[in-house]
């Protein structure tokens, strides 16, 4: 029993890394080099937040850091800043995930939306302070809104496709400990 639970966590971790890899590759595929007027949501960020809010044990903090540092490098963003902000946000959510269990989805969604807005604003302010070139404000806002709006969809997909669900109260871990 214990071994099965442990191996399930490792399988889920591998699954998340695989999902992240697919999302990154889809972003990188060169289909149309015309600048777009609209922006698709940052699915990688949404997925990471869903996973951390629901089952934080599936993505260790080092995975979050390495993943977002890699996307910083690949997507030509200033390296390190966005990754650091996402790590801080996921750590705050990770600490709160026990409270999320008893809350309706709307509260969880609101909290995470607030977090996304805050890291986006902090990112822009930091870049303005160090006088580094910035992405257009309109596009950034659209991306932020899209990421927030797509969150419940990602929750559903995570629930039904990847089996990432909230731990129900009273569930115990592999060694009989309280989760």
């Amino acid at each position, binding site marked *: 029993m214990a071994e099965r639970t442990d191996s399930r966590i490792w399988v889920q971790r591998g699954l998340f890394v695989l999902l992240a890899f697919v999302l990154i590759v889809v972003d990188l595929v060169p289909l149309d080099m015309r600048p777009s007027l609209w922006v698709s949501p940052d699915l990688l960020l949404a997925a990471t937040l869903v996973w951390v809010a629901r089952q934080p044990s599936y993505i260790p903090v080092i995975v979050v850091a390495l993943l977002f540092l890699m996307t910083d490098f690949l997507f*030509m963003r200033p390296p390190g800043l966005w*990754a650091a902000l996402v790590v801080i946000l996921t750590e705050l959510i990770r600490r709160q995930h026990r409270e999320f269990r008893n809350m309706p989805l709307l509260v969880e969604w609101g909290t995470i939306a607030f977090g996304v807005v805050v890291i986006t604003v902090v990112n822009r302010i930091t870049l303005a302070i160090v006088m580094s070139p910035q992405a257009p404000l309109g596009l950034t806002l659209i991306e932020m809104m899209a990421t927030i709006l797509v969150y419940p969809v990602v929750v559903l997909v995570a629930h039904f496709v990847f089996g990432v669900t909230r731990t129900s109260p009273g569930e115990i*871990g592999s060694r009989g400990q309280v989760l």
Partner: protein
Amino acid sequence: MARDKNSEDFIGPIRKLLVGVLVLALVGLFLVWRIDSPRVERLRAAAIDAVVPSFDWAMAPITGAANMISDFQSYQQLRAQNQDLRRELQQMKAWKEAALQLEQENAKLLDLNNVSLDPQLTVVTGVVITDSGSPFRQSVLVNVGARDGIIDGWPTMDAIGLVGRIAGVGQNTSRVMLLTDTSSRIPVTIQPSGQKAILAGDNSLNPPLEFLEDTALVRPGDRVVSSGDGGVFPADLLVGQVALGTDDRLRVRLAADYQRLEFLRVMRSQPHEEIADPDGLLAPEAEFFGPAGINPASLTTSERGDG
């Protein structure tokens, strides 16, 4: 990680410390990037160089599926497309005739004038591997790099027009900053008026022209070519056509097909030869005008007159 409450109390502070160190390291990397950008950008180029070419197998199915969908869409409009193409072909035949005559005439005139066009302009062709992955940066990665002798700043074209310039070279890959990127600035000339301007990318498909001296001389439809100012680009690479934007600014409709960039030609542009000693070349010799100097030309004629 599954652990009970007691052990969590024990692990908590250590974990917090490690997370703090992690965040500090990331912020530190950002600060180093801000202070010494070229070094970190080289690191970025090396990282992309190592990672991206191995994505190829993962991208092939996605590209294939997307191509299939676009092919399917074009099947639906097959009839209309066919008619359009036929009409276009008729027009093109007339153009082809005109082009052939002009080519012959041009060759003759060039021969008469004994013009030598820049013979050093050769190309390296590369395949586009990925785009920038972010809607905010307009750049693509091509599969030629330092190994193929690519150097930062070289212009890049597709079959017809200028696409961008090399910005960042790895061992096997290099990044092409497109003309549409917000940090792209290219000196251009507008034909036939010969006005100089700067083509400034602004993340839109038709970049605006800036620093135009006299907008009255420029009309929509005029050809825009690179001007070679500043020694960055060779002159006379086709960029596109002038068009009047909806915001009443003069913009450029790019000649390159940005919808499908697949093969890019990197032009090996050689640096200009510097004329280091302009006095010796252009100005008259110093003793010519000096009070003590004797004009050698008049000297010889006077001697000849004597003799």
